[in-house]
């Protein structure tokens, strides 16, 4: 049994919130640079250069890349031999979010109620996902999620008869519908299978997978590559002003599903795809 004190969790979450918003992870930056090198359309190339410049300014001046510093999505993977001591895990995470957003000069974008809409002023609560696994490690991933792209996400309960073609068509349709709104170049997170809610959860999880990693299943790796090519031939381009760089990656996650169903969720992220993690 390993003990982890809640104060360590709070401090880690605080730092991850700030780091994720100031410093773009290498996998995303590298992919944007690759796309900039390959882009021939002048407007598109110019925009990608500005996006790269923005990443450098944020890094050097320790400020958020985007003013929408997101709702804090926190993925907690807890080894079953870990014992959290000193208080509530959930409170510790939210305290970390609060400290990170207040002390890091990040924007507070959370309202306490979806209808009555009063700002909580510290960006809490986070959206937290727990997964319990064997072992004694505690892994925390923080992925601040902006809503320009979140709002362009969609879910569909397809029929099994719709099959692979139906899945592909739906994913392409979501990207087309989104057009310039989610700040392309985007990252397309796809969840296929499970239940209604599991599909959405998988799509979100897909967005925190490093862009340098493909699905380990060859069938889905090929599908990711095929969809990326298709999306990048739509012509939407950076910021929707034309070009070949519409998406940086398509990440697909899957789960077994029911004989009657084929749920597909598409969660879109912008070029400021943020994720930072720590293992305790």
């Amino acid at each position: 049994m390993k003990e982890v004190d809640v104060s360590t969790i709070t401090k880690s979450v605080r730092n991850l919130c700030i780091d994720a918003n100031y410093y773009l992870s290498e996998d995303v930056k590298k992919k944007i640079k690759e796309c900039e090198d390959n882009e021939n359309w002048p407007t598109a190339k110019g925009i990608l250069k500005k996006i790269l410049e923005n990443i450098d300014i944020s890094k050097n001046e320790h400020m958020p890349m985007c003013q929408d510093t997101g709702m804090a999505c926190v993925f907690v993977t807890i080894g079953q031999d870990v014992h959290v001591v000193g208080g509530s895990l959930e409170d510790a995470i939210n305290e970390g979010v609060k400290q990170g957003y207040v002390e890091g000069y990040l924007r507070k974008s959370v309202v306490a109620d979806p209808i009555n809409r009063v700002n909580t002023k510290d960006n809490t609560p986070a959206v937290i996902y727990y997964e319990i696994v064997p072992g004694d490690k505690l892994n925390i991933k923080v992925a601040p999620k902006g809503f320009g792209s979140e709002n362009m996400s969609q879910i569909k309960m397809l029929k099994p008869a719709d099959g692979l073609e139906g899945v592909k068509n739906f994913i392409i349709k979501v990207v087309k519908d989104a057009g310039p709104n989610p700040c392309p170049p985007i990252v397309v997170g796809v969840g296929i299978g499970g239940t209604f809610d599991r599909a959405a959860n998988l799509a979100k999880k897909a967005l925190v997978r490093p862009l340098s990693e493909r699905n380990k299943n060859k069938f889905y790796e090929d599908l990711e590559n095929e969809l990326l090519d298709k999306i990048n031939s739509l012509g939407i381009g950076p910021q929707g002003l034309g070009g070949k760089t519409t998406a940086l990656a398509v990440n697909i996650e899957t789960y077994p599903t029911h004989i009657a169903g084929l749920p597909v969720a598409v969660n879109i992220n912008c070029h400021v795809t943020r994720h930072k993690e720590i293992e305790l």
Partner: protein
Amino acid sequence: MEKKITTPLTEEKVKTLKAGDSVLISGTIYTARDAAHKRLVQLLDEGKSLPIDVKDIIIYYAGPSPAKPGHVIGSAGPTSSYRMDPFAPRLLDIGLKGMIGKGLRSKEVIESMKKNKAVYFAAIGGAAALISKSIKKAEVVAYEDLDSEAIRKLEVKDLPAIVVIDSEGNNLYELGQKDYLDSINQSK
């Protein structure tokens, strides 16, 4: 080559701007997003006067992050414009001449822009640290309780943007993608 424009944004200036023009905006602009727009239009509904005079101004759809000590403002990129579509025609009808945001606009907004001779600029979404460099002064002028969503008066110098929809209704989101795809098909 970028066109330099300075506020106030008069009808004469609007008419010189065409979809596809890269511009550098200087002068005074105002931030307002969802919650502020809702309040402004509510005031209009009640026949009351607005906290800012919108004649010949540019509204920037933005909710900046907080300023660090010694800084004028935090990161300040554009937010999605379509959420302001239900409100924008009301402001265009009383003299608003420019909007800076990102993403698509509704048919109603574009028709209102043509009727009222106004222009829609896009700034690069997500390039908020870069854009903040062109903001020289920032002051909350209304709705302080809304924090990042308050109306701020900004003094800007060479804020980079692109004319996406001009006062004749030409739309770079359509034209830009079409031109790009045509260029690909020609080279095949």
